[in-house]
């Protein structure tokens, strides 16, 4: 496959790893903020091939892991309603809510359907006029243009039976929050979280550009490198980041130039602004981060599932007290340091989202831990 195979080339990967080894003289911890990058790293085995001084921490970059518990519970409540067809991306089906997950709702007779694109959910609405079709609009900025278009199309086509349950989160505010909380502890980076640089999510930046990260490198004096997803792209990003760290510089760099520009995709940004506005969002396990998410603008209130079914707003959530996935997501604790890890909490019986997602840090540790690594 073009634009994929060449970025998985074993020889080039080996060469870049050698470059990286030559460049690295000290210990560095880099955080990548994208579930897709985590997935690629684990699938290719790249993290085990890095020089020993380089540690990659998997940040809160996976919508499965950070979608607030309240939103998951609301999704489950809505999906259980007999007049509702609940459509969602596949990732969310096994995420545990306070009591169960969407899969369980499906088993109990709820009409839960996996869709590849929000446009598929629109089609379901068109084909089922007597039902209310609710779409679970999750994701980072990458998915926002698609979700927004579904709302615009629903309005344009007069699909009164279509609604969205919005749960978008945005990256820059999360990076700020992580850096602030780590700095607040002791004036410098707290002992249990030391992130020296960030690999920014290449497809988030494809949409949003990377100018939003420029104030962040100034404020926190850490390098941020926009990085792609294939092994060669990841190594390119890591190399650029480590070179900066070795040289003591901190700026935003683009290691995914074929897809990302500084200003990003302007038509997509325009539609996001048209449909959504910024809001505070609770990140599961982390807490409320101000202005870190999207919600529907008032003019699209008709399509807001939470307004159409106000009874779901009163949902009481209950996170499993044993689960420390929030600390894991912030890079402050390793999964192996959790009391429930491997005992009450396994990929087959997950207590939290980081054990459900195939790229969740806990699931990854579980898999590799059995190798004795």
């Amino acid at each position, binding site marked *: 496959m073009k*634009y994929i195979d060449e970025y998985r080339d074993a020889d080039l990967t080996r060469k870049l790893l050698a470059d990286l080894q030559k460049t690295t003289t000290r210990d560095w911890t880099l955080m990548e903020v994208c579930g*897709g990058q985590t997935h690629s790293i684990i699938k290719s085995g790249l993290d085990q091939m890095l020089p020993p001084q380089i540690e990659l921490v998997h940040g809160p970059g996976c919508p499965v892991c950070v979608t607030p518990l309240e939103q998951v519970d609301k999704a489950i409540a809505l999906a259980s309603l007999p007049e509702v067809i609940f459509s969602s991306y596949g990732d969310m089906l096994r995420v545990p809510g306070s009591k169960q997950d969407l899969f369980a709702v499906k088993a109990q007779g709820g009409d839960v359907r996996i869709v590849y694109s929000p446009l598929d959910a629109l089609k379901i609405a068109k084909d089922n006029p007597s039902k209310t079709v609710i779409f679970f609009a999750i994701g980072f900025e990458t998915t926002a*243009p698609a979700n927004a278009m579904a709302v615009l199309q629903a309005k*344009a086509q007069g699909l009164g039976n279509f609604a969205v349950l919005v749960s978008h989160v945005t990256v820059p505010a999360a990076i700020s929050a992580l850096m602030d909380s780590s700095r607040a502890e002791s004036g410098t980076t707290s002992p249990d979280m030391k992130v020296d640089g960030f690999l920014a999510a290449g497809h988030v930046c494809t949409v949003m550009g990377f100018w939003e990260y420029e104030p962040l490198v100034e404020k926190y004096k850490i390098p941020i490198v926009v990085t792609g997803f294939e092994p060669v792209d990841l190594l390119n990003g890591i190399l650029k980041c480590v*070179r900066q760290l070795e040289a003591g510089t901190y700026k935003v760099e683009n290691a995914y130039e*074929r897809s990302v520009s500084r200003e990003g*995709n302007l038509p997509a940004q325009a539609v996001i602004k048209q449909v959504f506005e910024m809001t505070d969002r609770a990140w599961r396990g982390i807490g409320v981060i101000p202005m870190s998410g999207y919600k529907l603008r008032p003019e699209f209130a008709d399509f807001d599932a939470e307004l159409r079914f106000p009874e779901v707003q009163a949902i009481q959530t209950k996170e499993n007290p044993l689960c420390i996935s929030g600390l894991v997501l912030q890079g402050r604790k390793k999964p192996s340091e959790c009391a429930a890890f491997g005992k009450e909490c396994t990929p087959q019986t997950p207590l939290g989202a980081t054990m459900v997602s195939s790229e969740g840090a806990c699931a990854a540790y579980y898999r590799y831990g059995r190798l004795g690594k």
Partner: protein
Amino acid sequence: MCLGIPAKVVELYEANGMKMAKVDFGGALKEACMEYLPEVKVGDYTIVHVGFGLSILDEKEAMETMDLLRQIDSLGEEGTA
């Protein structure tokens, strides 16, 4: 976030007032919305995420990056690239 896979645009058309395309992921063909890529042409490669094209892959940039990465000497010894 974000499973975005390169796909080649093989056909462009309109549906429901939106610019749509038939894209080829390397043997698997599917429909994708091109509303966010007004300048896209047949033959372009795009990153497609959840059925939407989000960027047109810049072949020139890609080749330049590849050439740079493949260079045998290590630029790292001279500081940042």
